[in-house]
């Protein structure tokens, strides 16, 4: 079975609600069949609008959306055959779990036996067998969420959309539901478009992540690449933690550049900078800077510890380094732990390849 790499296609889509501000700007996005893609971004970045346009509740102001090669902009939501999981579950409160799941099948005039079979299968998939006669109000938040997932999948849609489905759950439940949804996706191979503002959720679940900001996709790539190789300072800032230095490029080679800070110079990896004299923001992940490194590293500085915060599995150390007192280090808690004390001076080193010189903030 060959997978269609352009199963869902946003083609130059613009969206404006008031005719003044574009909520989505010139969106170009291809989603492959069977892919789990996450739209990640702060609130107001246009990600939910994209989802609503795909579901058919909003129409694009300009451009087309294609599903399996067909333009769907003029097809009403109920004919698109797209399953959707809503933020507040949107279970029908006056129907039992069974009736909720049977609803999409009944409107499709499926036989009674077939409905029973499919509802049964869908419920066992989310491990809620035996809950058929319960009303939604009698279920816990996590159970309601699973019913909503089962309902969106029960009629075998080609695409399932999920609009921050785990937002209302507590942390532990949210994490276990993340794995559960991920496994369901893996076992049935449906295309999932997932919207969230929670980056760890996006990193855990997705094949690819589209980071939205200001109505535009800032970066579309797999989780590892997104974290390791952010292409601009918004993505670097939004995904994970990040130490930044603002400065000016004073020297640039193929894979190295020298950035002049307020009172020192560091070596960095030129990503968005092309020439001397450009302003830049250098981004460095906290775990890439090491204390008293044994290997040779091309950036070596000494700083003073300002604060030590114990986090269980790791310790966060805030340093005063290179004129900034916001430099964060993550030190894993191992048996051979260092003595870290406030006001202590320590040596810090990192490789220039990990310090990405991006667009200035």
């Amino acid at each position, binding site marked *: 079975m060959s997978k269609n790499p352009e199963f869902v296609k946003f083609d130059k889509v613009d969206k404006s609600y008031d005719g003044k501000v574009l909520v989505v700007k010139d969106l170009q996005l291809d989603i492959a069949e069977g892919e789990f893609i996450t739209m990640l971004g702060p609130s107001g970045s246009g990600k939910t609008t994209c989802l609503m346009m795909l579901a058919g*509740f909003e129409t694009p102001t300009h451009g087309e959306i294609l599903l399996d090669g067909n333009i769907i902009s003029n097809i009403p939501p*109920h004919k698109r055959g797209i*399953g*959707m999981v*809503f933020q*507040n579950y949107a279970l*029908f409160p006056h129907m039992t779990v069974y009736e909720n799941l049977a609803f999409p099948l009944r409107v499709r005039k499926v036989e009674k036996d077939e409905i029973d079979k499919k509802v049964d299968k869908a419920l066992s998939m989310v491990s809620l067998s035996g809950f058929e006669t319960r009303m939604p109000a009698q279920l816990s938040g996590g159970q309601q969420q699973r019913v909503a997932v089962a309902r*969106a999948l029960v*009629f075998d849609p080609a695409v399932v959309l999920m609009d921050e489905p785990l937002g209302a759950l507590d942390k532990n439940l949210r994490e276990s539901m993340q794995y559960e949804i991920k496994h369901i996706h893996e076992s049935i191979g449906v295309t999932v478009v997932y919207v969230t503002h929670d980056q760890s959720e996006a990193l855990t679940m997705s094949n690819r992540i589209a980071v939205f900001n200001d109505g535009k996709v800032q970066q579309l790539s797999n989780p590892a690449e997104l974290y390791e190789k952010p292409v601009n300072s918004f993505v670097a800032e939004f995904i994970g933690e990040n130490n930044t230095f603002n400065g000016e490029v004073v020297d640039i080679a193929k894979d190295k550049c020298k950035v002049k800070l307020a009172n020192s110079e560091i070596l960095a990896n030129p990503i968005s900078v092309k020439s001397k004299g450009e302003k830049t923001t250098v981004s460095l992940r906290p775990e890439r800077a090491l204390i008293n490194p044994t290997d040779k590293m091309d950036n070596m500085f000494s700083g003073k510890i300002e604060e030590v915060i114990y986090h269980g599995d790791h310790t966060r150390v805030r340093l005063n380094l290179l004129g900034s007192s916001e430099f964060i280090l993550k030190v894993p808690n191992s048996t051979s732990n260092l003595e870290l004390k406030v006001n202590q001076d320590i040596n810090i080193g990192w490789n220039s390849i990990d310090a990405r010189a991006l667009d200035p903030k």
Partner: protein
Amino acid sequence: MSSETKQILTTDGIPLEVSLKKAEKKNKIKAFLLVAPLLLFLIITYVFPIGEMFSRSIDDKMITNMLPKTFKEMEKWDGQELPSEEVFAAFYYDFKVLVEKQEHGKLGQRLNKEKNGFNSITKKLFRQVKRKKIDETISIKEQVMRVHKRWRNVEYWQAIKRTAPPYTMSKYLKGIDMYYAADGSITQVDEDRRIHRILWLRTLEIAFFVTLFCFLMGYPIAHLLATLPMKYSNLLMICVLLPFWTSLLVRTASWMILLQQQGVVNDFFVMIGLVSDDNRPEMMYNKVGTYVAMTQILLPFMVLPLYSVMKTISPSLMRAGKSLGGTPFVAFWKVYFPLTIPGIGAGCLLVFILAIGYYITPALVGGASGTLISNQIAFHMKQTLDWSFASAMGLMLLSGVLVIYWIYNKLVGVDNIKLG
């Protein structure tokens, strides 16, 4: 069960239940004192008047008090033949007392309602008594019977006996066009005099259709109110509420201006050529006027409960219905509509109950064919001064409302009502 379970003691050895009661007693008293003024108000303005109305509606003590001796003697009478000398004598002595108190006229009037012809024969008897023509030493029966031949008719004595009980249901029977016949059985009045039954049916009919019209018009408005953006919905809400804040009388009067034959609506119909100028339809002083005016006046009572329920229905439910493959109609009918039933129930119940007892609007625009039972009650309170009949009808209306409430509770459940 509870007696078998071990009693739990506090650390001081007092049973937990006792200790809990003690702790909560103060709060309970406080709560009671807070509601006490309202309770008192309700008792004075609601429970007491209804009790008063009820006792008035069944009260028939007047004759019972006027003829105490007679009714005592009548207890022994079989009611078939003419009563005995003792009954006649007792009646004569009771009557004499009434003559002294100048209350014999009232007796005649009251008995005349029971049986026609009493008024004249009591007057005749009064003249005899006043002139002291009756000799108390010989048979009083003979002398009374000689006053008028009707005193010899057993039916008149049966009529007196019927008034003996201090309570009567006759006012209630009258309310449904029935009465106690001479032999004491319950009989319908002649067909051409059955006015109350027509009024009851008309009241129910008008209340039903006004409720229906209010629902048909109020549902879309409420839906619009609940879904429009705030700045538009506020404006619309004011449009709905504005008539609510205007005096009922003013609104009814303005309907009179609009609906009369030379009124605005008729002028408009003539202008657009719907009706000819010399053939203007009557839209007032009949049912049409009552329907139009009452529907408009009661509309907010339908819109507000519906709105408050619709406001709580998340728009994502309709979206979910559509995304799962339901057409907009299916999504509405299977998802949205069932969720609004509590609001529909509350709105319909409110409008129906208000409509069934509506007074001022039908009185002003209803004319002869548009008046309701409440207008009849007012008529008896103000014109005939038959307060006991008005009370009886009022209570029948009240119990009708309670029956409707009971049926509603059985069908939908009062717990499901949402008034906002």
